[in-house]
């Protein structure tokens, strides 16, 4: 599936056109295809590995064309290596083994023979030029065997966040080489008490919790609420421009939608009852949530602007933790209708709450269902295992369950990456409660947060 032959020049131009709308601060006028001197009419664009093994990639330091670009050049190459390693589509040759390879100062000097000796199938060559507050990044990806350029891009824009150039590069390389939607430009949101502020009020020992966002790899952690109150259960809008969450700023929690790049805040539930755990429908037009507005915790759906509230469940037990199916036609949720303190996961139609079915049959405790994106058809959840919790995944087609974590601390609140290959979750294994990411196969654990306690992660599109 990765051996389609394409005309290179046309492909690069098409990719550049697509990149214009993706790139922050990028001036389309400065973009041009490079590597055009390559005159072969047809070349193999997808780099393979030996004998079907994953191709081996090398990401040497990019060349700083001016002294003040050195840090950006190093950052971009390191972050690009990390981004490519994260998806595990390629084998990334460790950067500390490159010392045997002479550094190239230009694309013409890339020592292909040395890279081949190191076992590389693919190698990047990049330059970074800095002019004031802007940088220009030129990148080529070479097939080491054929010495052909298979990917060539030039970006220019702000020098403020070099990591974003690497993230964009990683996403574009994954798309071109593996037809994979990488997650390098996605973001996480979570709840944190890291500022150790106390709530103002008559009860002294309550800690402020605010909503934070970060890059998918934990870089650039930023607070998006400043209420000095309790703010919990964030979730991303499908366009990744808004975070919905429950805020206790007016005592009874209301669902707010923060348009984080515009500084606009909308109150969707308008003071009616207590409202928790908002989740956007896949098309972004609706929000499912839990509310007590009719006297008991039930699942509701409303339009994004708070209109047209519909109740989907009606049971004296507690119904909460809604999650949408990828098409939006169904909602999975948690209910303790078989016994208080013994929640299980159920599924209903999102239109009217009909067709109720129980999904978890062999768990003592199951909560926080999170439906995977296609092509996977599975639900991750927090499962009681012993005294605490582990993340498990239920395959909806076969009914089989696989365990992702194994009782290293308590592991809760799984959230899928938009390509379904990864999960964010919380764990107590490293001190306090921290956000981690892990592959859907249980490999590739990565700690995202370290300051204070961090809970309830959500992963953007």
């Amino acid at each position, binding site marked *: 599936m990765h051996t389609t032959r394409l005309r290179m020049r046309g492909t690069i131009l098409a990719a550049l056109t697509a990149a214009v709308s*993706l790139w*922050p*601060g*990028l001036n389309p006028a400065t973009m041009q295809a490079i590597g055009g001197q390559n005159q072969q009419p047809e070349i193999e664009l997808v780099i393979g590995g030996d004998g079907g093994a994953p191709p081996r990639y090398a990401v040497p330091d990019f060349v700083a064309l001016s002294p003040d670009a050195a840090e950006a050049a190093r950052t971009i190459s390191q972050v690009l290596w990390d981004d490519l390693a994260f998806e595990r589509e390629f084998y990334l040759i460790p950067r500390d083994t490159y010392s045997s390879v002479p550094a190239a100062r230009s694309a013409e000097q890339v020592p292909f023979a040395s890279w081949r000796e190191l076992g590389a199938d693919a190698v990047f060559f990049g330059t970074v030029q800095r002019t004031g507050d802007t940088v220009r990044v030129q990148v080529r990806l070479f097939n080491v065997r054929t010495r052909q350029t298979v990917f060539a891009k030039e970006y220019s824009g*702000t020098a*403020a*966040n070099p990591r*974003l150039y690497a993230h964009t590069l990683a996403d574009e390389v994954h798309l071109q080489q593996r037809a994979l939607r990488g997650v390098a430009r996605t973001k996480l949101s979570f709840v944190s008490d890291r*500022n*150790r502020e106390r709530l103002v009020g*008559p009860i002294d020992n309550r*800690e402020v919790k605010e909503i934070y966002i970060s890059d998918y790899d934990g870089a*650039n952690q930023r607070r*998006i609420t*400043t209420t000095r109150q*309790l703010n*919990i*259960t964030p979730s991303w809008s499908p366009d*990744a*421009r808004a975070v919905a969450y429950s805020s*206790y700023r007016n*005592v*009874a929690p209301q669902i707010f939608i923060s348009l984080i790049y515009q*500084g606009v805040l909308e109150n969707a539930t308008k003071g009616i009852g*207590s409202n*928790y*755990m908002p989740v956007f429908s896949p098309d972004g037009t609706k929000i499912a949530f*839990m509310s*007590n507005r009719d006297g008991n*915790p039930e699942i509701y759906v409303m339009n994004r602007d708070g209109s047209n509230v519909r109740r989907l469940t009606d049971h004296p037990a*507690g*119904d*909460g*933790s809604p999650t949408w199916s990828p098409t939006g036609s169904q909602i999975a949720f*948690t209910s*303790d209708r078989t*016994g*208080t*303190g*013994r*929640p299980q996961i159920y599924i209903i139609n999102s239109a009217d709450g009909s067709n109720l079915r129980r999904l978890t049959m062999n768990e003592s*405790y199951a*909560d*926080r269902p999170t439906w995977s994106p296609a092509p996977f058809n599975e639900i991750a959840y*927090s499962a*009681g*295992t*012993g*005294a*605490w919790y582990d993340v498990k995944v239920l395959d909806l087609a076969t009914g089989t369950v696989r365990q992702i974590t*194994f*009782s290293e*601390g308590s592991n*809760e*609140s799984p959230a899928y990456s938009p390509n379904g290959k990864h999960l964010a979750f*919380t764990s*107590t294994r490293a*001190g*306090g409660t921290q956000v981690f990411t892990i592959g859907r196969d249980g490999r590739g654990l990565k700690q995202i947060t370290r300051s*204070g306690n961090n809970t309830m992660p959500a992963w953007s599109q």
Partner: protein
Amino acid sequence: MISRRGVVAALAVLAVMAAPACSRRSKVPVPLPPQPAPTQTQPPAVPPPPPPPQVAVEDLQPSSPPLTEDSVANRSLDELNRNSPLQPAFFGTDSADLDDAGRAVVSNNVDVMKKYSQWVVTIEGHCDERGTAEYNLALGERRAVAVKTYMVSLGIGPDRVRTVSYGKEFPFDQAHSDEAWSRNRRAHFVITAK
């Protein structure tokens, strides 16, 4: 496709706005919850019953002089809630039902509310840390609803009682012990209008 140029500009603004508030204070070490035994495969064991609620209630109450009607009537909401005449009710593990002791506490609170007929209260439902964060929001709500239902049955107008769940977000006792957990499974009364 969204414009990422605006994104970066807005992020920069956000970063500037957030910067002064991000200065970290001294970090308080957070103890790990007890680790489960690796070989343990049974469902969570039922812990020993909590201490009698009356004991915990006394523990929770700061020493304060007996209230007279005037002293209560003249106090601000903050003062009232700091030394509240309304006692918290406690719950068993994995339970949203008021037991006899809980009903006695709520009944006493109802008597106070009948005396001060202008008071409006919010019942906060809280949980211990052993449940998941999300389910505890529903469980805390159910605890608050149970208290409200009992108060209404004793003659308090439903419009005088609001419910809210804090799940396990605001433990009263930060310790990780049976005793702490029994104090944290509670319905806390907050007077919100008088």
